[in-house]
């Protein structure tokens, strides 16, 4: 039965629709205690003293842990998430400073929300009541909030061992950018700001630590994207072997950005110390203040081109506001750099990136992670160039897209994994043509002027992006047939909405000759699988898909070998249908998986997939907007996506990922901003102030697949989870500029809030009036 590529219904839905999911807060453990984090109210301060005596005396309080109580463990996270190869470091002039993030603050706090104490009580309400009684005496210091000030000479330091507040940096040079810029006939440039946003899954984070028993190791349940990596961090923190730990993820209510957080470590420490399960559940204010902050760059960029419209060179200088600690090293600015040229042939390229520490929450990769930022900047530069040259942006794009015949194309630099960055597959011109046609671009352009005149201005914007997906280093899966004849699929990558239980079972099911919905699936539990990667960087369909396929092929071979002995028939003459093996053309004779499984030898195959490097997904988006000139409100009136994620495992699921990504990008483009004041206080602490897109903010989205399978894995799959986030900001910004083209405004800052847009409109109108008066 063909399953891969079919829009088969999701197996996850029944439980979820009936309210039978088991999210973090739904798990119950006997004798469980509840913890709450006492957090710094200041962005930067000395801690003079902590007095927990009143809290300890309160009803139900079991313990109040501070930095002094973290005995026998590592007091801080110090290992960065990704390692870099020496060749990469040399080639791209990488500087990497120390990373140190205290598990609980000692002597000083470096951001609002930093954990200072971990209070454990018999229940959540007792913990919340008592937390107010923990007296921390702070001496506030002037915080460093603006990253440009942070790197100015003479700035105070966020941490003493990071001089100049530059924690990491790199410099990429491809070709001869200096000469190319000098020789180019035309240039456009600008300073672009991408607002800080927050991943904001609808479920907040949570973790439970459970002490070791005779049979079970110390266990942490956490709403994590990376159970195996969390286990490695826990082992370092607790100074114990990884085998002494189990990490498992329950059902998760979204995630949108990975990472390691202090609370996941503290529940383990507290459970071990107290001999009882300790649960910590985040509330929304904590989530918006502490978890998955992202974007937040200032990018100076220049595009050089000829009067013929041919792009010559791109220069970028990226200042990445990392907040108070930089777990992810170069990841975000380097992602911007490696995606900065997008789908265009630009031979000369010069990018510097600085990771700057400030007294804000730690910045992490969130859906898109650098691609939306890179794409927005490039989309804007291309449209600015089109205006400068007086040609339509779609035409200018067409002239500069990398042609399909030049694939694969070496981009002249290394990717973060140390491999040469090569665009492996895709047909960008076809993608643009398909999008223009589906959108009726030229027709709408013609009608655009007829519709003008009211207070609403209509605009159209185009964006195209690339996304390196399927990041390594590895993923593991096991496929087996248990005693009852049930096929059981276990994989290291765990889902938080991405439909692993459907799509990966489709891959295994098609290979093994059994319907996907008869396969039992297990994910995200180090107790079930010794190794695993996780779910991030649009990697699961690629890495988990490939490894599930590999393991399934091997299991199929073993099934056929065993069945050939039992049926006395050559394996090549056997077929599998619905879990029964029969000689081809003789359906009356068969042996079932259950009969094979009772044969003695375990029917099991485990595989590990190590991708050679990332594979390139891509997409082209076109958005149309109606801008209210009076209020600055932008309404999306149309949206088309043309996408290349290689082989599509399940089009229904992939479309769903695209819809969600576009909505996330719309949030980044128009609504979402984590705002700090000059004192480092977060002003956007609830969903009343931090605006997620609602159904009314998102238009109907048309999705067209133009797949070009990658040669880099057996399925031909490229990632699809994040790419669509990348193009929404650029497409929308270009559409808004287009709508207001008589005013010649430039949009260089995200989000495009009504307030910002009204200011731009008023300033442009004032300039026009002045211009007229001057005539």
């Amino acid at each position: 039965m063909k399953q891969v590529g079919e829009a088969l219904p999701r197996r996850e839905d029944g439980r979820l629709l009936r309210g039978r999911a088991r999210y973090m807060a739904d798990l119950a453990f006997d004798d469980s205690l509840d913890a709450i984090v006492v957090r710094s109210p200041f962005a930067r301060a000395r801690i003079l003293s902590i007095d927990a005596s009143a809290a300890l005396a309160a009803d139900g309080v079991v313990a109040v842990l501070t930095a002094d109580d973290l005995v026998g463990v590592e007091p801080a996270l110090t290992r960065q998430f990704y390692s870099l190869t020496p060749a990469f470091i040399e080639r791209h002039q990488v500087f990497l400073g120390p990373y140190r993030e205290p598990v609980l603050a000692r002597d000083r706090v470096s951001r609002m929300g930093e954990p200072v104490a971990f209070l454990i009580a018999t229940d959540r309400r007792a913990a919340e009541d008592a937390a107010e009684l923990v007296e921390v005496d702070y001496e506030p210091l002037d915080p460093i909030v603006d990253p440009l000030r942070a790197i100015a000479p003479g700035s105070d330091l966020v941490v003493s061992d990071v001089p100049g507040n530059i924690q990491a940096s790199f410099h990429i040079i491809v070709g001869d950018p200096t000469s190319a810029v000098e020789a180019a006939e035309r240039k456009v440039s600008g300073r672009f700001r991408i607002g800080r946003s927050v991943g904001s899954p609808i479920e907040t984070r949570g973790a439970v630590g459970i002490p070791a028993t005779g049979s079970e190791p110390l266990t942490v349940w956490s709403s994590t994207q990376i159970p195996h990596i969390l286990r490695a961090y826990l082992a370092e923190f607790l100074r114990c072997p990884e085998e002494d730990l189990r990490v498992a993820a329950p059902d998760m209510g979204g995630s949108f950005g990975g990472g390691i957080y202090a609370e996941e470590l503290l529940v383990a420490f507290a459970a071990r110390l107290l001999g009882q399960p300790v649960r910590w559940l985040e509330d929304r204010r904590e989530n918006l203040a502490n978890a998955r902050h992202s974007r937040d760059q200032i990018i100076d960029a220049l595009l050089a081109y000829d009067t013929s419209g041919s792009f010559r060179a791109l220069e970028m200088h990226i200042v990445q506001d990392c907040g108070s600690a930089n777990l992810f090293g170069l990841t975000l600015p380097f992602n911007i750099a490696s995606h900065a040229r997008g789908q265009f042939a630009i031979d000369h390229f010069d990018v510097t990136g600085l990771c700057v520490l400030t007294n804000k929450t730690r910045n992490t990769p969130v859906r898109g992670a650098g691609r939306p930022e890179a794409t927005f900047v490039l989309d804007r530069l291309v449209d600015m160039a089109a205006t400068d040259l007086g040609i339509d942006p779609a035409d200018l794009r067409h002239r500069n897209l990398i042609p399909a015949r030049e694939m694969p194309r070496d981009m002249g630099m290394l990717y973060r994994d140390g491999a040469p960055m090569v665009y492996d597959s895709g047909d960008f011109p076809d993608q643009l043509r398909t999008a223009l046609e589906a959108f009726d671009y030229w027709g709408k352009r013609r009608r655009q002027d007829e519709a003008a005149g009211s207070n609403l201005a209509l605009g159209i914007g185009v964006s195209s992006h690339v996304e390196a997906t399927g990041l390594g280093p590895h993923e593991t899966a096991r496929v087996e047939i248990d005693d009852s004849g049930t096929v059981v699929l276990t994989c290291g990558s765990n889902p938080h909405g991405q439909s692993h239980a459907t799509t990966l079972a489709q891959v295994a099911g098609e290979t093994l000759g059994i319907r996907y919905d008869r396969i039992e699936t297990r994910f995200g539990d180090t107790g079930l699988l010794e190794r695993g990667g996780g779910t991030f960087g649009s990697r699961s369909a690629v890495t988990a898909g490939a490894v599930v396929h590999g393991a399934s092929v091997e299991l199929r071979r073993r099934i056929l070998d065993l069945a050939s002995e039992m049926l006395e028939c050559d394996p090549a003459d056997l077929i599998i249908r619905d879990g029964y093996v029969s000689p081809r053309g003789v359906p009356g004779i068969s042996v079932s998986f259950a009969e094979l499984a009772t044969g003695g030898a375990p029917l099991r195959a485990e595989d590990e997939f190590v991708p050679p490097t990332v594979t390139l997904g891509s997409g082209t988006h076109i958005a149309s907007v109606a801008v209210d000139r009076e209020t600055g409100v932008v309404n999306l009136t149309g949206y088309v996506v043309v996408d290349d994620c290689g082989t599509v495992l399940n089009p229904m699921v992939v479309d769903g990922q695209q819809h969600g990504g576009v909505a996330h990008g719309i949030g980044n483009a128009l609504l979402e901003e984590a705002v700090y004041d000059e004192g480092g206080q977060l002003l956007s602490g609830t969903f009343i102030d931090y605006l997620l897109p609602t159904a009314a903010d998102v238009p109907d989205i048309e999705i067209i697949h133009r797949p070009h399978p990658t040669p880099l894995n057996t399925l031909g799959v490229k990632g699809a989870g994040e790419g669509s986030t990348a193009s929404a900001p650029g497409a929308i910004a270009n559409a808004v500029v287009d709508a207001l083209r008589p005013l010649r405004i430039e949009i260089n800052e995200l989000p495009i809030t009504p307030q910002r847009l009204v200011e731009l409109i008023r300033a442009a109108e004032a300039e026009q009036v002045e211009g007229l008066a001057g005539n």
Partner: protein
Amino acid sequence: MTRDLHSIVLNVNGDEVTVRVEARQTLAGMLRDQLGLTGTNLGCEHGVCGACTVLLGGRTARSCTLLAVQANGRSVTTVEGLAADGDPLHPVQQAFADHHALQCGFCTPGFLLTTIEYLDEEPEADPDSIRERLSANLCRCTGYHNIVAAVKDLLERRTGR
């Protein structure tokens, strides 16, 4: 702080229950922690995201910002009340499944109950009003596209359009 308990009687998913609650216990807290109905999810506890939406006397209510004692004598429908285990899905649940209108599922119970109220109050509603009505609930996964499609399908089936 006082921890006096109050006895309340209410109808939950068709069954009359008596529960002893603290005055400060929220309706969501009572449903989840005391009745074990964990299908009602807490997303923000500020009454914004709508994940905790239940029907109170047939109308949607945010169970995170209501006190349990306020539900005394009322009837409450949670997601668990839409289809008993083993029974077919409620038509709204089925439409969500048919249209892939859920991914992680965390916001889904709230969307189901918001949709049920909408279809109940405005069986002849103009499909153009769907997005406005659904903007009471937040979803981060689906981009709303397929939720809107599911609700539109339900409306069209009702009106035969």
